[in-house]
């Protein structure tokens, strides 16, 4: 993984830059010693590590603006960071860049019950929002697996999802407003407590921009009343085809479950060995289908889902009879990543989305790729929305094995694109999938995305080296190659 070559003249000014930053952010807000900087050397994608030039932890919006203005004027790069849980290396530091940590922005500013929203600082954790509102029966819907640790600012940057997003949407569908700071230090507010933008939907583009467009300093999120009832069906299937068929038939029957998860045999075994959730071991695929809502609706739909599962050849079909049992059904799925961590020293978690109908084909081809690369793979799958999480097992202590795992992963993602899917459903491109972007996008597609980047950050100082394989200069991207009189009047029907 090649990052942009560090700019030596910037590194040479390090001490001067630290002094200038200390004038803006007093006390412990500027971190420059190597031991303390170690804490920031990687995010959730631990295969890549880099010490930042210096880390800054501002505590006010004005400080964020001042730091960005300073860096912009000196041509210094900035890498924003929330809790550092990104699985795609979105917060990987740069040797010649300032790491801007938002951890001190950890307060819930306002809970507006009547308007059903909360205004929070970006460093508040995803689960922290739900904790702040659940005593009155509300919650914040998107629930990425890292929700104990990941922050709402990071969720906005990555447009995070979770197991419930088929029914309740991703981050972008659940936020009402943001305050953000542009690279030039401008502080802007988008949205508020009302719906929809008055001009261009800039909040829509900020969400999922992976820290390349601006730094989020405040977020207004929608809070929803908690469903009264949640019950789950656990169903094993003799083949992945029959499980996939069951998922398609549930949706074709007009049912959108709160969550619908699939695991393949290796994932089932790893999870069962770890948490003893009572999963059947003699099946090729396992579905967990959760229905939530008013009790009458849940009871009604459970019967229908059960009937569909039976018709699709489900074995060991069980319906949760109480909350303990429901949580137990989920325990294995939620522990799937650490469970795989027990059977392999290291694993890479991939994140493609495919049209669901392509699942049997993709699983067969993935088996062939597993043999080709000589590495095992376990699959967990947000089956409702086609978001696949293959876990590639490897041992970093064996020379060359990480590289093989990365090649295997790249092959899987190319396969996802080949069948009509995408490189990433919820983890982001970051550095991990950056060089695969041309598998999905043409040069013209990427050029237009980069031009939008130029509108926010014309000198590419904000989180460079992420998302785009080659970052062209904005002047070059903006050039138009046509001149008057060289193009014929178009020969089209007209009136």
């Amino acid at each position, binding site marked *: 993984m090649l990052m942009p070559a560090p700019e030596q003249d910037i590194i040479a000014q390090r001490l001067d830059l630290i002094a200038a930053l200390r004038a803006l952010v007093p006390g412990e807000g500027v971190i420059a010693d190597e031991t303390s900087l170690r804490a920031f050397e990687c995010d959730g994608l631990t295969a890549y590590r880099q010490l930042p030039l210096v880390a800054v932890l501002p505590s006010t919006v004005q400080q964020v603006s001042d730091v960005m203005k300073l860096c912009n004027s000196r041509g210094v790069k900035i890498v924003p960071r929330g809790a550092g849980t990104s699985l795609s290396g979105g917060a990987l530091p740069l040797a010649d860049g300032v790491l801007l940590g938002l951890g001190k922005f950890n307060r819930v500013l306002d809970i507006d019950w009547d308007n059903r929203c909360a205004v929070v600082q970006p460093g508040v954790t995803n689960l922290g929002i739900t904790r702040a509102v659940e005593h009155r029966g509300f919650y914040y819907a998107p629930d990425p697996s890292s929700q104990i640790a990941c922050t709402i600012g990071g969720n906005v940057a990555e447009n995070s999802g979770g197991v419930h997003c088929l029914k309740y949407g991703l981050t972008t569908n659940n936020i009402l407003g943001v305050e953000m700071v542009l690279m030039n230090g401008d502080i802007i507010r988008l949205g*508020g407590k*009302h719906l*929809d*933008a008055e001009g261009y939907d800039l909040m829509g583009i900020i969400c999922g921009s992976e820290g390349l467009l601006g730094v989020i300093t405040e977020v207004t999120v929608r809070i929803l009343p908690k469903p009264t009832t949640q019950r789950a069906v656990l169903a094993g299937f003799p083949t992945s085809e029959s499980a996939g068929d069951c998922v398609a038939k549930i949706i074709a029957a007009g049912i959108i479950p709160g969550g619908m998860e699939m695991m393949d045999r290796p994932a089932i075994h790893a999870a069962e060995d770890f948490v003893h959730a009572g999963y059947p071991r003699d099946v090729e695929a396992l579905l967990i289908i959760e229905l939530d809502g008013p009790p009458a609706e849940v009871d009604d739909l459970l019967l229908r889902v059960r009937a569909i599962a039976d018709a699709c050849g489900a074995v060991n079909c069980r319906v949760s009879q109480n909350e303990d049992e429901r949580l137990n059904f989920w325990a294995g799925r939620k522990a799937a990543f650490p469970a795989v961590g027990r059977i392999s020293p290291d694993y890479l978690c991939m994140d493609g989305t495919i049209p*669901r109908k392509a699942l049997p084909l993709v699983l067969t081809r993935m088996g062939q790729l597993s043999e080709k690369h000589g590495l095992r793979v376990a699959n967990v799958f947000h089956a409702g929305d086609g978001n696949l999480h293959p876990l590639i097992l490897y041992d970093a202590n064996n020379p060359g094995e990480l590289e093989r795992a990365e090649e295997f992963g790249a092959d899987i993602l190319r396969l996802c694109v080949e069948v009509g899917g995408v490189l990433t459903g919820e983890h982001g491109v970051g550095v991990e999938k950056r060089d695969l972007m041309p598998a999905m996008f043409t040069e013209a597609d990427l050029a237009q995305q980069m031009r939008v980047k130029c509108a926010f950050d014309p000198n590419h100082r904000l989180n460079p080296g992420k998302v785009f394989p080659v970052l062209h200069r904005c002047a070059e991207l903006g050039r138009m190659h046509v001149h008057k009189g060289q193009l014929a009047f178009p020969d089209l029907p007209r009136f």
Partner: protein
Amino acid sequence: MPETFIPSGTTDVADLVKWAAAETRPLSLHGHRSKAGLGRPAQTEYALDMSRLSGILDYEPAELVLTLRPGTLVSDVEKLLGARNQMLAFEPPDYGPLWGGAAARGTIGGAIGCNLAGPRRFKAGALRDHLLGFIAVSGRGEIFKAGAKVVKNVTGYDLPKLVCGAYGTLAALTEVTLKVLPAPEKTRTVLVFGLDDARAIQALAAAAASPHEVAGLAHLPAAVAALSGVAYVARAGTGVTAVRIEGTDISVKARCEALRDLLGSFGAPLEELHSMNSAWLWREIRDAAAFALPQDRLLWRLSTAPLSGPTVTAVIAQAQPEARFFYDWAGGLVWLSLPPADDAHAALVRGAIAGNGGGHATLIRADLATRAAVPVFQPQPEALAALSRRVKDSFDPMNILNPGRMAPSAGT
């Protein structure tokens, strides 16, 4: 009248825009012109009629995706989906009659350009929440795509969000993929009669905060309720507050029961609308049908924090006793009809919003002169306006596509 080109494919559009960019000849983009009255008036020498780029390309109900050409009529899409018990969950309104046009002439491309959304907006999202991907021609004449054809995707910037509500000023769409969802088996509406606006919005807030998964929350003051085509509503003689429930048969019955208990605590009489009456009422609310006539009255669409709705209208009504209005989205969407005025009462309307929790107002209907003089879309603070101009430049550096439709062009 501008000279109008009628392209039939993506490359036609690209050739034309490339020529227009090279010659600096701005283009107006349109489908059937059902919403031509919306936006700042902009005169161009040439126009691009996108309505021939129509038709379904791929529809897979089990994958919840629909790929089509943007010139397709919204009404045709709804028929197609309805046959498979699916729907466009953002419930696209039909605004054509607001400017005296025929009903059901709007295209999907127009719906995207205006980021349309009906009463289900607060639960299911607007069009922006359902556009998964597109192919388009930028103002540079370049063909590019963004997003994808699957329901969950974060690869690259979410440009589909940006083209929603951009009024054709960024790119000419030539193929789009929408997320579709199952249609509810059953719909019912609980009505509450006689609440004043503030109490009504509190009742809607209580319903919204309940776990009964409501899918429509509107309040019609007496003067607007009287215009309804639904007899129960028109004959009430009072304000009518409406709460919509959707789902399976058993579930809808149970939740209606629970909601009647909840809303009964407001001490006002209740009624229930079933099937046809319920559908008719929500279509009227969706299309702001009460304000289609008379057409010389100004029409504003206000987006506010839900509970601020009645506070904002109270300020306006005090200064303009002839103001008529009703509330959707639990109070967060206010449709406001005012007598004609050269300034469209813009300072009053926007000032009332600014002083009561913020939001924005769009001047939906006014004559040409008024729309040329009064900002149709909410003016933005300078840093944000400058960013928006840079975003426009990034797609359309020569200002070829619908110049001036949203904001005045630079230099004019």
